[in-house]
């Protein structure tokens, strides 16, 4: 792994088209600004892993049987969680 030291407002170029700027540093938090072409996907890593884990829980045959599930009624009030 390449390790670089940057100060606030300094940047790193990844290739010619992706620029990562250190916006702010406060304690153990770093705010980064990312300038990249629209085609480049930029995500928080833990979100990607959360989705991967959920997909693994959701794939048949780990998932239960739909035939025993009550019908969905879109008119019923929903919980906002």
């Amino acid at each position, binding site marked *: 792994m390449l390790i670089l030291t940057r100060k606030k407002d300094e940047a790193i170029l990844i290739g010619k088209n992706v620029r990562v700027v250190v916006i702010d540093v406060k304690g153990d938090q770093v705010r980064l600004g990312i300038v990249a072409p*629209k*085609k*480049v*996907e*930029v*995500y928080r890593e833990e*979100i*990607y892993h*959360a*989705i*991967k*884990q*959920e*997909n*693994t*829980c*959701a*794939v*048949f*045959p780990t*998932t*239960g*049987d*739909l*035939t*025993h*599930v*009550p*019908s*969905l*009624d*879109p008119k*019923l*009030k*929903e*919980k*906002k*969680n």
Partner: protein
Amino acid sequence: MKINTASFGEIEVDDKQQIYFPAGIIGFEPYKNYVLLDSEKEHFYILQSLDQVKNSFILINPYLVRSDYVLEILDADLAEIGCDDPQKLLVFSIVTLPNDITKISCNLLGPILINKKNLLGRQSISLGNWQTKHFFFEKMAQSNKV
């Protein structure tokens, strides 16, 4: 064409039900060919892998379980499936159905997008603050009797 499915055995499907996921589904990247099927339950659909018969996902329209759901995604997600108008997309959520039905949930953070025009699909990652487990048993017809 005839295909093998995990839930229904061998069935006949129309070419229009075949969806190609260029990037696969997150965590299942090698499998790119799927068919979209109606399930035996209204409002639920099955996304069956053609490459791996035992892999299938239950899908639901997220707006049915969360009326204020908003699709917030990167342009890269739309570009990947050749879509210039999000209005023309089919949007689904993958359902997680544990043995305890009351814990049924759907993944609002990783919506499945399907471009109806070219039958390309993609699992995107929402930029909004949605959850991978949105529990929705209270939307099930019998839930108030339990």
